[in-house]
């Protein structure tokens, strides 16, 4: 009974969502068609958004849907269609290199997991930060524009540079046209 008591609604939801995320991630790695992979990553993105919302970070969750699922996945699909849109990934060859990589990844994962296991965690997080009077987007807005003004400006600069850079990189060069 005690065991089930710990399985509250949020925990159940988390378990379901994380299983879905991992499933999507594995599908991402096992699909052959590139476009399917793009779809699978979309699933991962939405799953992560669900986790964020579960954690009370609803603004981040929606931003994740908007940017990752809405824009980035579409961009990826665009790129796929503009390049070799029937592209297929050959089945993973278990060459020495790939085995080493797989092993390395697994070891890294185990090491990280052990580190997590080993760490003692303080008491559960309270609601110190998220005062109930201020909603999540407002709180984030405050943090962004008060504490993190300069990083925020820098990120906007980065976006502009990214925009301009992407436009310049992707446009066909003049001499090519001639």
């Amino acid at each position, binding site marked *: 009974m005690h065991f089930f008591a710990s399985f509250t609604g949020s925990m159940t939801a988390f378990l379901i969502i994380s299983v879905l995320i991992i499933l999507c991630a594995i599908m991402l790695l096992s699909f052959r068609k590139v476009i399917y992979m793009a779809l699978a990553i979309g699933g991962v993105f939405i799953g992560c958004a669900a986790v964020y919302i579960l*954690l009370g970070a609803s603004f981040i969750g929606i931003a994740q849907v908007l940017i990752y699922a809405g824009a980035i996945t579409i961009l990826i699909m665009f790129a796929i269609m503009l390049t070799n849109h029937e592209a297929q990934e050959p089945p993973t060859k278990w060459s020495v290199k790939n085995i080493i990589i797989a092993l390395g990844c697994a070891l890294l994962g185990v090491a990280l997991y052990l580190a997590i296991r080993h760490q003692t965690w303080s008491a559960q997080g309270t609601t110190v930060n*998220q005062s109930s009077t201020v909603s999540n987007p407002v709180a984030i807005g405050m943090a962004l524009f008060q504490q993190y003004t300069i990083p925020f400006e820098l990120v906007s600069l980065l976006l502009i540079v990214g925009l301009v850079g992407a436009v310049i*990189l992707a446009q066909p060069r003049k001499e090519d046209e001639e």
Partner: protein
Amino acid sequence: MPTLSIPPQSLLTLGVILFCLGLFGALTRRNIIIVLVCVELMLNAANINLVAFSRLGASPNLDGQVFALFTITVAAAEIAVGLALLLAFFRLRQSSEVKDMNQNKL
């Protein structure tokens, strides 16, 4: 807001699993787009940790969420530039495979 009953360990473990899967993909897949996608996966894994700590860390505050937001933004810029590069590369070589991107070697 009610207290959450999700232990932080499980969130972090989810992050680790996603990260390792992403890493594996990024190092083994041949299509550049998929490599980029796998990098996004790794970024998401990191984001989960950030948001988790923002809620469940030793001193919960909004910094984690703000950082996650920055990560998302940077990821957007990254993918835009990355895909533009990919398109330019594709025009040049008619290929979208990582193994053809070896022009930096001597």
